[in-house]
Structures are given as structure tokens and as C-alpha cells.
């Protein structure tokens, strides 16, 4: 039967884990937005040399699993003298992965802004920088919002592999409690409930926004 006393007892542990999941998730996502914007602008403006690096970065980041990236960072890098805490590794890994997804989202947003917009901005006497900041970016960002939200959900889900580098996130908490108290059903049910509490709101916002924007090419 369902052991409610057990659920009551471990609930605080899950709450703490959920906070960690959300906190590291948000930090990683914010960083990946910055990386993504910079990369998208470099690609859009076709800046030589840097453009090559960005393209290589995007390919590497999109074609390797986060878990392997984290293993290399947390267990491999210390061998050549780079020691990072699990928290830093987790955020850095998420940003490394998310940066390329965000870059793609922003780039398709930038590409969707018609050239006439830029030309009109120039003819109004704006310089390159001003045209970018006041005319192109705002339009690009708003068209890329659905893809952007899909990426956020994707990245929040990806945080579940943080358990591999000993971060006490929801996944590890559930696994650890199964190993400590052998209550599999309750631990797994709580795991599902907590992930739903984190991801469902974001997903609902995503659905509403998608309906508003109706932009083709939704999805990661």
C-alpha cells in the first residue's frame, strides 16, 4: 500500500532537489541565451574567422550528448589541472549544449526579418548598430520565441543527467531514496509529480505563445 508517512518524510528532500534543478537550469539557460545571441549575430553578420569557430562549436555541441560532455568536464579535465565543482560543470555543460540550440533559434529569427527592414533603417539615418538593436533584433526575437520556449523545456529536461556528476537533483534524489529505503513506487511517483510541477507551466506558456505567434518551424 501507499506509504504516506514515507512521502511526508521525504517531501522536503524532493523540494530541495527541485530548487536545485530549477536554479541550475535557469543559470544554464541564461548563459545559453547569451552564447546563442552572440553566435547568431556572428553568423548573421558573417564575421570572418569567428564565423568558422561558431560553426564548429554548433556542430560539436549539437552532435554530442550532454552526459558525455559532463563526464569529460567533471572526471576528465581535472587530469590536466582544470578542477571544477559539480555545480559549475552542470551549468557550463548546459550552457555549452544550449548555446547552439539558442543560436539556431535566434538565427532563424534573424533570417526571417526581411532585408527591406534593414534598408529602411539605414535610409532613416540609423547606423549598423542602431539598425540591429532597434529594428532587426526586436522582430527576430519575437519570431523566435516559440523555438526559444521549446529549447527551454528541452534544457530543463536535460538537467536530469546532472545526477551523473553527483548533483542532488530530482533524479538522483529519487534514485538515492530507492537505494536507502527501497520504496520504489512512492519515490518514482514523487519524481514524476515534481517534474510535472516544473515543466507543465513552461509547456502551457509555450502552447499559448505558439497559438499566438503561429510561426512555422516550431521545435528543437
Amino acid at each position, binding site marked *: 500500500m501507499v506509504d504516506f508517512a514515507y512521502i511526508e518524510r521525504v517531501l522536503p528532500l524532493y523540494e530541495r532537489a527541485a530548487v536545485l534543478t530549477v536554479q541550475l537550469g535557469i543559470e544554464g539557460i541564461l548563459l545559453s541565451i547569451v552564447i546563442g545571441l552572440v553566435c547568431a549575430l556572428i553568423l548573421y553578420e558573417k564575421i570572418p574567422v569567428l564565423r568558422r569557430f561558431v560553426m564548429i562549436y554548433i*556542430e560539436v555541441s549539437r552532435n554530442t550528448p550532454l*552526459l*558525455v560532455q559532463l563526464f569529460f568536464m567533471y572526471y576528465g579535465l581535472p*587530469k*590536466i589541472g582544470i578542477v571544477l565543482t559539480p555545480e559549475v560543470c552542470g551549468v557550463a555543460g548546459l550552457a555549452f549544449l544550449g548555446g547552439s540550440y539558442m543560436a539556431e533559434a535566434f538565427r532563424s529569427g534573424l533570417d526571417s526579418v526581411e532585408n527591406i527592414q534593414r534598408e529602411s533603417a539605414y535610409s532613416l539615418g540609423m547606423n549598423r548598430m542602431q539598425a540591429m538593436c532597434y529594428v532587426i533584433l526586436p522582430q527576430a526575437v519575437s519570431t523566435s520565441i516559440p523555438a526559444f520556449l521549446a529549447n527551454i523545456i528541452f534544457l530543463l529536461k536535460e*538537467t536530469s543527467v546532472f545526477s551523473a556528476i553527483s548533483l542532488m537533483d530530482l533524479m538522483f534524489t529519487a534514485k538515492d531514496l530507492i537505494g536507502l529505503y527501497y520504496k*520504489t*513506487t512512492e519515490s518514482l511517483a514523487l519524481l514524476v509529480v515534481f*517534474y510535472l510541477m516544473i515543466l507543465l507551466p513552461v509547456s502551457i506558456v509555450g502552447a499559448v505563445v505558439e497559438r499566438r505567434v503561429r510561426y512555422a518551424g516550431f521545435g528543437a
Partner: protein
Amino acid sequence: MPDLGLEVLMKGNNLLRLFDGLWIAVEISLLSIVISIPLGILLGILMTRKNRLVRFLTKFYLEFIRIMPQLVLLFLVFFGTTRSMGWNLPGETAAVIVFVMWGTAEMGDLVRSALLSIPGHQYESGKALGLSRRQTYFYIILPQTLRRLIPVSINLITRMIKTTSLILMIGVVEVLKVGQQIIEANRMVSPNAAFGVFLVIFILYFVICWSVSMTARYLERKWS
């Protein structure tokens, strides 16, 4: 040149074992995608039905699979089903089940939007030619949909191969676990093995996923 711990890979069958481990990941993804395609087409067709209940159930399935991290699904199937249903699944089977559930959902959604994107006059032309509803589906609609699906399914394969790294966490001995075993067996002689081994695994994953994505991109360009 600092010690990068690459020499352990030259010992015994170590490098070969890494390849074997990676092959398990590729096999699981390929098998899952092969099963997912027919199921996904079925789901996609169901999703375009007018019936409210069918639409609600398929939508619910799709959203649940999409919202749950794959690792959680793996845990639910691997530990949950054995507990509540008395099934006894090896990790590999659990992985295939989860990937098929996921692949079917993704594929179903793609089929749904592909079906909806096929203009109405195609259906009407089929009817005008005297084809039955089923014949219209089989000879006119599905072939057009399938072609659009191939590049996307290849894309899904890369995502699956990447996700197979998670099966380490349900105890399947795949490339990361083999890597750990190699590091562990050589801890005394090559203390820096972790760097070399994980770097090689990183590169191996990249080579496989990158070549698959390149193929997808090529097909997309060719057929669009």
C-alpha cells in the same frame, strides 16, 4: 607532453570494447526507429481523426512523453513496470521500449502535421479518380508524407543515439560504462586514463552523430 592517459586504449581489447559499447547504442537507436516509424504513422493518422476521445488520448500521450525527461521514462519503465506489472525487463529492452514510445510520439506529431500540410485537392482528386478512402491514403497521401518524413527520422536517430548515453544510468553496459571499467582496471598504471578515455568517447559520439546529421541535411536539401 603531459600524460593524457591515452595509452590504456592500446592495452588488450580496450579500444575494441569501446566500439562494442557504442555499437549497442547505435543498435538500440536503429531498432527503436524501425519500430517507431509504422507506429508513428498510425498515431499520426489517429491524431487527425475528428473523434474527440481519440484526439484527447493521443494528445495526452504526446504531451506526457514530451514533457517527461527521457531519463525519468527510462526509470519508470525499468524499475516501475517490474514492480507493478511483474515484467522483468533487461535494461536494453527497457531502453528500446522508452525510445519507441518517444519515437512514436515524435513521429506521430510529424506525420500529423505532414498529413495536414497535404492540400485538400489531393484527397479530392483521389476521390474523383474513384479511389476508396483507404486507397487514397495508401497510394496518394502516405507516399507524399513518407518522403517528407525520411530526413526528420534520420534527425530523430541522431537525437536517439545521443540519448542512448542515458542507459548507463539503468545499468546497461554501454560505451561510458566500458570506459569506466577500463579506467578502473588501470587506475594504478595510468592514473590519467579518465581524460583520454572520456575524450575518445566524446569524439566517437561526435563522429557518429555528425555523419548521421550530415546525411539528414543532404537528404533534406535534395528532396525539398
